[in-house]
């Protein structure tokens, strides 16, 4: 058994050094062939993309690397499908033996031992040993098969390890992409200068957020949007970026909130088309006419808390952006004169956050807004988001908060 272990150990060592299974097999296969007294040997890899077995390594008088055999064809195809060790003591009597390979290569096959290379019952390929020179009646005795099986197991292990390595490399690349996308997303999230009449903050639940906020100052107006894209990950972040660009484009054109919502819906409805949507609350703080105009497109309720303690909820007047066409999308505007009140615009990562196992809902938002009503705009925002940072409020989603306070305009 020592020689079998030596061959497998050498194979694994070569693989460990090169990280290349075929390179390792190229050095181990000749030793196996030599040890068992065969004339030639080969390894065929099962390529599921083409449904063919491809010879990747061989030793012997003829180089057959690159030769392809369809699954199920020839002796290698038969073993690949049956996953059973196969001995052919005389190819003359085997109906599956492909004589065409011999004819084209000039090699004369007499006998064959073919073994499946499998990992967890999944077929990777086959090893074939040809033309054992022996006078014994039993051309492929059990100890001989045992050696070949040991190498096949080592090969399977090497292949599996190589697959995992490739997967880790791919995952690393993907993670780097996600990290990069997160950095881009962070760059798209603006810092809000003081004195514009609102504050905003976002706590992504994972690396990429589906929530966003943005603003644009156009003359005497400050346009603000808070949005939540359905779904998560890279796809949602791309939609988010698209929504932000649309918002900026239409806000820059000095459109009303209703027009911005209509135009954004029209574009997103045309482009998304795969049951993705964006809930949005769009507001315009007009410092000249001293009113705040807003539109709620499927964004859930928004709290308006008066200085006196009275409150109201601004309901959604239309479905989210991107779901229905122009004819079915009719968002309504609300208009509030400047005064002693604040708008608390939250995404569901906050309204559905839990305190002691119960969803806080709008009653919780009202309690938080009431508690922090005497703090400055920025302090109120930070204090509210700290409830999530400190895990006093438990959430499973991105948490975004925009607070509008016209008394904070400078």
């Amino acid at each position, binding site marked *: 058994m020592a020689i079998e272990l030596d061959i497998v150990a050498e194979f694994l060592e070569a693989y460990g050094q090169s990280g290349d299974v075929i390179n390792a097999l190229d050095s181990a296969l000749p030793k196996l062939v030599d040890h068992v007294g065969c004339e030639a040997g080969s390894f065929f890899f099962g390529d599921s993309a083409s449904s063919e077995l491809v010879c990747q390594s061989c030793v012997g008088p003829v180089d057959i690397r690159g030769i392809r055999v369809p699954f199920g064809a020839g002796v290698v195809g038969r073993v690949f499908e049956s996953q059973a060790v196969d001995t052919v003591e005389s190819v003359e009597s085997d109906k599956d033996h492909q004589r065409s390979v011999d004819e084209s290569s000039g090699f004369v096959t007499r006998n064959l031992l073919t073994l499946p290379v499998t990992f967890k019952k999944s077929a990777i390929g086959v090893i074939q040993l040809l033309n054992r020179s022996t006078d014994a009646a039993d051309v492929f005795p059990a100890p001989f098969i045992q050696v070949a099986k040991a190498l096949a197991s080592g090969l399977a292990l090497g292949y599996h390890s190589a697959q995992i390595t490739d997967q880790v490399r791919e995952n690393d690349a993907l993670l780097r992409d996600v990290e990069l996308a997160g950095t881009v997303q962070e760059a798209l999230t603006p810092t809000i200068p003081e004195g514009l009449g609102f504050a905003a903050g976002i706590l992504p639940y994972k690396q990429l957020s589906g929530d966003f906020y943005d603003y644009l100052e156009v003359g005497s107006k400050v346009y603000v949007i808070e949005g939540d894209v359905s779904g998560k990950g890279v796809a949602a972040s791309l939609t988010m970026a698209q929504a932000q660009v649309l918002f900026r484009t239409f806000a820059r054109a000095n459109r009303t909130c209703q027009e911005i919502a209509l135009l954004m819906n029209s574009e997103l409805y045309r482009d998304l088309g795969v049951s993705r*949507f964006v809930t949005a609350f769009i507001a315009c703080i007009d410092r000249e006419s001293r009113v705040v105009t807003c539109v709620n497109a499927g964004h859930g309720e928004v709290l308006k808390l008066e200085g006196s303690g009275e409150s109201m909820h601004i309901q959604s007047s*239309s479905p*989210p952006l991107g*779901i229905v066409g122009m004819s079915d999308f009719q968002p309504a505007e609300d208009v509030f004169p400047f005064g002693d009140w604040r708008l608390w615009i939250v995404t569901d990562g906050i309204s559905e956050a839990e*305190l002691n196992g119960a969803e*806080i*809902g709008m009653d919780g938002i009202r309690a938080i807004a009431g508690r922090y009503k005497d703090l400055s705009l920025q302090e109120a925002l930070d204090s509210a988001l700290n409830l999530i940072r400190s895990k006093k*409020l438990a959430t499973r989603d991105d948490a975004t908060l925009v607070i509008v306070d016209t008394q904070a305009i400078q």
Partner: protein
Amino acid sequence: MSNTIEVSGQTAQITLSGSVDINTTGELRNAIQAVPTSVKSFVINASDVSYIDSSGVAVMLLVKQVAERSSSSFAITSVSPMVMKVLELAKLDQVFKIQSVASEGGENKPAAGPSTDFSDLF
């Protein structure tokens, strides 16, 4: 609790239950898109849903979209009160025609109310 799709003859029955979110809807989305073209009727039952997020709502929209594309009928036979609340808040009750709202089940997530003591928060 799981989200399933069963195709029987010309009808695809989609049953949503438990938590319907991004973690539980991936396979269902693929299955919906792979429904055979012979299906001419799509029916959603969401009466046992305890939680639904935007990904869950997106699945309902996907079913509607697939039905419309194949000129098939589409119906939501029943939704849980939680689902109805989400649809109403987002004005999606304008998009979906809901045939009935199931009575309150025992598995819905508890929600705070006006009498809830939030002093633990501060």
